Structures are given as C-alpha cells and as structure tokens.
C-alpha cells in the first residue's frame, strides 16, 4: 500500500502554533509520509494539515495528534481553494506558499522560479533597469522609493566593486512576511538579488538577517549552498557570492545606512545622507540596499514584464502589497492583494472582524512608528499616497488591531520607550527627544503632569519630526500624537488642572 502524503508547514509561526508537535507525534507512524512545506500564511487555521485529492489539496485545521485517523480516512477535509481568506487574495510573490518544500530547487523551478533570471541574462543591464522602471515598483521596506532610480544610480556610478544588500532586519513589530520568504521561498530572494547584481554590475551580496530569526538564517544558508552547487551564483560571467550576516538585536539597523555600518562591524549608527548608498554604500562603494520583499518581487517582474506589474494596484502604488494581520483580529495572517482596498475592507474581508468578545479601539499600520487609526478612519485606501496624505505610513505592511481594553497612554509610553531604547544616538532630536517624551508620558501616568506638559509633548514631537536624521526619530512622535489627538480623554483625565 502506498503511503499517504501529508503536508505540514515548517514555518516558525506554524511550528509555534503546533505543526512541529504534530510532526513529532506522527514521525514514527507507518503509512504516512510527512512533507514539510512553507506556510500558506493563514495562521489562524494552524496547526493545519493538508493532503492531495483529485480536487487539489484538502486541509484539516486546528488539528491535534489524535486527528490522524480522521485525516487518513479523508474525513472532514475542506478544499484549500474554498478557504475565502486564501481564495480572495491575489498571490504573485507568495504564489507557491504552502505548496512547496522551501529548499527544493526542482519545486522552485516547477513553480516558475528562475524564469526572471533567465530573462535578465538575455537582455542588457540597462534593459533590466528599464523593465523595473516600467513596472513602477517602489521599495517595500518602508521608504517606498522607486526601485529603478536606485538601480540606475548604482549602475552608472563608476567603482571597482559594487554590492547588493538584502535588508532582512524585519524589526517592525507586527511584520513577518520577510521571515516567511526567507524560511519558505529563499530562492526567490536569491533570484531577485542575482537580477539586481546583473543590472548594476555587483560581485557580492549580503543578507543582513536579524538575530531573532534563527530558522530564517539556517534556511538561507542552506539555500545559498544549494544555489551555489546548482551553478546559479554567477553574474556577468563572474562568481557572485552571497553571505548571511546576523544582526544583534538593534532595531535601527533596519535603517539602510545603520545597516551598512553594522555590516562593516561597527555600531549601527545612522549615516547622514547624501551620499545615498546607491552612490556610496558598503565600504564606500555603490550599494543597493533593499528589503527582502522588494527583491522577492523582482523575479516576476522580469519574467512577466514590467507592464504586467504596473497593471496591478493604484496610480502611485503599483503591484501587490503583503499585509500582515495581527493583534485582536479574528483571522490573523499574511495576505497579498493589489493596492487599493480600504483598511476596513481588509479587516472585514480577511481579518473577519474582531476576535470573539473584543471591540475595536485602534489600528496601528506600519510598525511601532506607524500612526493609529480609529474605527471612523478605516475607510482609507491602502496605498502609499493616501497614507502619506493622512500623515501615516504603510511601512512594511504590518497591521495590529487593538481592542477596547487597551490603555492608549500606556501604549504611547511603550512605543516612545522603545524608540528611546533603540535610538542610535547620532542626532539630538531623537536621542534626547525620545527620552524626554517618554518622561512626559510617565509624568502623565503618575498624575503629576499639567496641561503645559501636553503642549510640550506636542512641541517636542514636532521638533523630532522636523529635525531627526532618520525615520526612527522623525516618525516616533506620530503614533503618540495620533493617540493624543484621537483619545484626548485618556490623556487629559490624568492631567492636573
């Protein structure tokens, strides 16, 4: 009798939700073959087990080890294609997630992998950049800078060496799509870096991966080894090396110039710009620093054409966005959709509203530096320009939903304390400003503050916004001031008159 093949995600969050326990419990069972795949991103269903059927994959959700007989009997599985959270998405970068084994070169190619790189190798470096220009891709790490412009600067700057650096320091709390790519589809990142290397003429690449992601680091190193053995790692007829470098717990190292300092082994202190890294980056050489998701978006653009990418999304925000739902929402998980749905539509259609018994109070988009939205503000379309108009950021696509139990003053203090801890110290507005802002918030908590302290907090915030060297200091006041503006009673009721 042939063995029944069962698919279990090996993603860190799936394992934490229980797939690892299932794998351990079933490892010795006869009659089954366990295949560890990437994750579908529908984490609210984990631990989830899948098996093949004539109608495609069937899924069993919230599985315990005792469910095995039921699964083997084919009893109760639902077709994955009918899960609305997944079927309503438009997956391009995350298309093979949940299907394949992350380190299988064959599976990667069977899903269309390497088509982009092949295309890139058939055309000139300037034609690659032209394709990216046509795609109107903007960086996915937070700054949303047009990708082609960076590449063009690096390509046209004369230098003895150039570098490609993947920013895998996914530090924004509430985000995890880079982790999923590195653990679940590492060859896509590598392919994107190779295309960039060819476009700008780089000979070496680095992936700066945060230390909090040990599984991603292991997976990337294995993928780089496999890609090297398969002969993929070359650019312009020369070997192209890729090295994974571990961070050491510093949030600001996700800022591109601090990241370069850290890659060079120093304190992760922000550099003043210009020059931008594309002109003078790692060791003073032209360097493309882009987010993992940005690199992972590149192969499809080359394979399917820039015009295809530009046909998705909204006027200023082309393509798809990877949103990561977390907090008190009913269905937390990863979704990839074209830009343009409103925040409310995303929370309703994918998040399916609030967790049982919870009532929405505020939604933070874009990590710890992202602005807070109240229920009345959720009709904002998800795209760069609308968010910029609202003094908000999409950042790296993290969406955290807070319920009505949340103390907004304490949340504000927490966020400002985080910035005070993580400030690199180079510029005064951030180094001193975040500390003073935290102190004011603590004074309010202690009941000792006056109205003057609230004015001071606002004034301090405005100074930080206007004068900080990087986004850590200039964005830090936004969540706090948006909390103060939208939940004034929570602050003012604790202020002495």
């Amino acid at each position, binding site marked *: 009798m042939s063995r029944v093949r069962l698919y279990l995600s090996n993603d860190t969050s799936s394992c*934490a939700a229980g797939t690892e326990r299932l794998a351990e419990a079933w490892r010795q069972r006869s009659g089954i073959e366990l295949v560890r795949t990437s994750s579908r991103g529908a984490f609210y269903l984990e631990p989830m087990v899948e098996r093949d059927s004539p109608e495609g994959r069937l899924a069993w959700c919230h599985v315990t080890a005792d469910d095995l007989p039921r699964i083997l009997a084919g009893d109760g599985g639902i077709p994955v294609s009918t899960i609305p959270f997944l079927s309503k998405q438009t997956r391009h970068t995350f298309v093979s997630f949940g299907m394949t084994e992350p380190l299988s070169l064959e599976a990667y190619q069977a899903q269309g992998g390497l088509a982009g790189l092949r295309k890139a190798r058939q055309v000139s470096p300037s034609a690659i950049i032209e394709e990216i220009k046509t795609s109107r891709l903007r960086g996915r790490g937070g700054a949303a800078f047009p990708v082609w412009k960076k590449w063009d600067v690096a390509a046209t700057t004369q230098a003895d060496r150039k570098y490609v650096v993947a920013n895998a320091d996914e530090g924004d709390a509430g985000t995890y799509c880079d982790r999923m790519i590195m653990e679940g589809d590492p060859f896509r990142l590598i392919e994107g870096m190779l295309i960039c290397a060819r476009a700008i003429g780089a000979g070496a690449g680095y992936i700066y991966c945060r230390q909090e992601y040990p599984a991603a680091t292991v997976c990337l190193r294995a993928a780089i080894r496999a890609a090297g053995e398969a002969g993929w790692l070359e650019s312009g007829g020369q070997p192209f090396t890729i090295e994974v470098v571990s961070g050491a717990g510093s949030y600001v190292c996700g800022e591109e110039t601090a990241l370069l300092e850290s890659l060079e082994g120093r304190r992760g202190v922000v550099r003043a710009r210009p020059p931008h890294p594309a002109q003078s980056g790692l060791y003073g050489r032209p360097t493309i620093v882009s987010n993992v998701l940005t690199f992972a978006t590149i192969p499809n653009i080359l394979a399917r054409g820039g015009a295809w990418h530009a046909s998705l999304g909204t006027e200023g925000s082309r393509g798809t966005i990877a949103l990561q739902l*977390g907090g008190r929402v009913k269905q937390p998980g990863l979704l990839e959709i074209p830009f343009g749905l409103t925040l409310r539509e995303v929370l309703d259609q994918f998040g399916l509203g609030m967790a049982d018994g919870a009532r929405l109070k505020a939604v933070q988009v874009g990590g710890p530096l992202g602005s807070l939205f109240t229920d009345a503000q959720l009709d904002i379309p998800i795209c760069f320009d609308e968010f910029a108009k609202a003094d908000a950021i999409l950042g790296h696509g993290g969406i955290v939903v807070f319920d009505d139990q949340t103390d907004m003053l304490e949340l504000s203090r927490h966020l400002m304390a985080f910035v005070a801890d993580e400030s690199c110290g180079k510029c005064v507005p951030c180094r001193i400003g975040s500390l003073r802002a935290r102190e004011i918030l603590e004074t309010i908590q202690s009941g000792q503050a006056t109205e003057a302290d609230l004015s001071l907090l606002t004034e301090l915030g405005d100074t930080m916004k206007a004068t900080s060297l990087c986004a850590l200091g200039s964005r830090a006041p936004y969540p706090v001031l948006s909390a103060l503006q939208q939940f004034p009673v929570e602050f003012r009721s604790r202020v002495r008159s």
Partner: protein
Amino acid sequence: MKTPLPNELDEILTRARPAEGAPPNILRVLHAIHDVCGYIDPRFIPAIAQSQGVTEADVAGVLSYYPSLNTQPAGRHRIQVCLGESCLANRCDRVVEAIQSKLGIDLGQTTSDGCFTLEPVSCVGNCAVSPSVRIDGELHGRVRASDVAGFLDRYR
C-alpha cells in the same frame, strides 16, 4: 596583569584576523565569541582590539551598542518574552506577570539557582500566533498566562 585566554578564544581571534589590507569587523568577532561562550567577558576586549587592529574603545563601543550581546553569563535556560505590539494587543503583560511571579525575577534578571534568565524581546515575527515566548530555541505561540507553570516545569 594579562587576562588568561582560553584556547578557543585564541583560535577565534586568529581566524577573525582581517586579511592583509582588508578592513576589520568587530561585530563579526563578537558574534563568534558569543556563539561559543554565550556571553563576552569584557576582559577579552584588549585581545579582541589587538587582533582586529582597532582601539579598545572601538570594541567596547560595539559591545555596548548591541542589545543581544551579553557581557555576563545567562542562566541555563533563556526565556524571551515578546513585547511586540501584536503580543501587547493579545495581553502578553499577563504572561510576563505569570512568569515573573512563578520565577520570582524581573525582566532582565536570572534566577538565583542560575536556571532561568528572563529577557524581553521587541518582536520575534510570530505576530499571527501571539503572544509569543521563546525558551532556548523553542518558540511557543498563543501562550496564556495559565500555560506558564507547565512550560517552565518541563525545563527544571
């Protein structure tokens, strides 16, 4: 007085010495030592500085900058509680309280028997199944305060 160096450290420093003309990389050496020892004894700073051709202040500066480089040995088991926003929204404060009261230590402290060190971490990227607690290498998701006692007993 010269700090005696274990053989392992000598070996790491020799391997990490920059090639002729190549730039030093302090963080890389510190990682290498941390991986072996679990912490970096500040008494090693002069030897590290010498091996990299940099000043002691350069090494001390990098060592003090990065939160995950410890300068003292941690407990046998390292408990990291995530304080990221998704974990906060899902009441990780209750989990932290449960761990603190079970172990009788605060964040950043080690139990007197040297068994556990309790550390805060700002996000482990497990936001969709939060709150998160990592004990040594093992990550636990959807942790409730009532789970804590059972978890910790397994490590005693």
